[in-house]
């Protein structure tokens, strides 16, 4: 029965400076997140302009800098909403070849 479907889940590892979270989604979930941040310049699930100060894809890593000062918990919470909105769910598993999101905030001067 299982041969009818692939288990093509992908994993996304989210890093803030201090915290991390792991998400699993169908293949293409990371690509949808990246497309939202880079092409549309919005964090999925959030619609105000200017929230993303910088977004860059480096190999398998999405580097995000969000506007204003935010705690690590805030950053992780924002990415939690973003990834859930593109079809990813929190996961206990972690694959060796996980995609990565490195998220930080704009430092107040």
């Amino acid at each position, binding site marked *: *029965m*299982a041969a*009818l*479907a*692939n*288990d*093509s*889940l992908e994993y996304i590892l989210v890093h803030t400076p201090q915290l991390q979270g792991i998400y699993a989604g*169908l*293949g*293409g*979930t990371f*690509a*949808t997140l990246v*497309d*939202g941040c880079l*092409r*549309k310049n*919005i964090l*999925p*699930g*959030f*619609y105000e302009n200017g929230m993303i100060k910088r977004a860059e894809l480096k190999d398998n890593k999405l580097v995000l800098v969000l506007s204003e000062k935010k705690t690590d918990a805030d950053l992780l919470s924002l990415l*939690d*909403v973003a990834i*859930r*909105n*593109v*079809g990813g*769910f929190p996961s206990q598993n972690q694959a060796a070849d996980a995609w990565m999101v490195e998220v930080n905030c704009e430092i107040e001067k």
Partner: protein
Amino acid sequence: MAMKTGAEYIESVKSLTPRVFVAGKRVENMLENATTLSVIRATAKVYELAEDPKYKETMVATSHLTGEPINRNLNVARSNYDLDMRAEMALLTSQMLGTCNYRCVGCDTLNALASSTWEMDQEMGTNYNQRLNTYLKWAQDNDLACSGAITDPKGDRFKRPSEQDDPDMHLRVVEKRADGIVVRGAKVSQSGAIGAHETIVLPGGALKPGEEQFAVAFALPNGTPGITYICQYTPYTAEREAAESIEELGNPEFGQRETSTIVFDDVFIPWERVFLCGETKYCGRLVARFAKTHRMNCGGACKVGYCDLIIGACKLASEYTGLQKVPHIQEKLIDMVRISETSHACAIAAAAKGREEPEGSGVYMPDDLFGNVAKLNIAHGFWEIMKMAGDIAGGGVVTMPNERDLNNPEIGPYIKKYFKSAAPAEQRLRIIKFIQNWVAGLHGAGTWHGAGSPQAQRVAIQFLTDWEAKKALAKNLAHIKD
């Protein structure tokens, strides 16, 4: 992963923030807006029904992909029994909700795709069916609520999609990339998409060579960037917004049927979620398979459940007014049952006469003719039933005061005194309000157009009926020789 409970479903949508508008205002929290909340409550109820041992046979199926129990809304029919239970689920959810099972269209789109992707893979060597099964297994594992989106805005109806002044009148692919596609356009009249986790999108109809950009089917999470939901706004929306308590409303918890227009503003869809892209030859068959499935369920089961509610309410109304023994009332109630159960019988026949399509796919589709007849019959019959319901319920169905009047200390005693009949005023007003929800509500036109307007069923019936065979039978008995 186990099936979700109603509470787990609600928890899962709390963290979703799709871009939803009601009456020109952005809905920031779908659990705090009266309209969107009614959709979420209704969807939660569908999850709860699957938890109830009493409804397990109807609401729970076994996945052909994993062998695990799954919500039937994510099941692909693999037998006549599956088809029958699918229709029974539509009946049950309508009886329990009095509005849409908002997972219903998604279920029928998945079944149509299961059939057509298998066919495409066999004939063209694509891997759409594998993709769909992988998607479906993931949706089943997470017990996701999937809605369906089919109807394009269409623009000038006399022009083909490729002839429109604005090419976005039919959802289309505007870019193909290595990792996926970008789509633009809109889908209208989508029931309950705002409360779903995912939407399954099909082309709006048959397409010809040269119209490849419009030939696209895919699934997407409802929070995908570029998606906007613009909800319908009706007098019932306004009434719900203005209500001090949901007890004032005709269907307090679950409301009328809520739909939205979904705008796709250059939305990225990864290839893993694309199930048809450019294959115009298969679009007509795909949509026809959706239509026959949905017409069996919508026409011969869902609306029959609504009729059960209306008939029950009319029986109560006749008792509350002391008219239950009046012959013409009894006659009307019997006629309502006759109309409703005729459509129900068509759904049962469509399931019983259904067959594997295409042969070898393992996917069962209902009988096309019975499915179309079920829908066409109820499209007309539902108005008839509402006419009789309005008759039995009386003029109060459009002239009644509000429940707030009943509770007002100054005027409440008048209401209690003058609206009392064979039952207290409270009961009488409540059942009249319930009937108003139907006969002066949205379901008449909704039933007419839902699953395709009657003209679509007439075209199908014209095509499906073997007129020559019927003529030959008549000629044989009448001794007419050519």
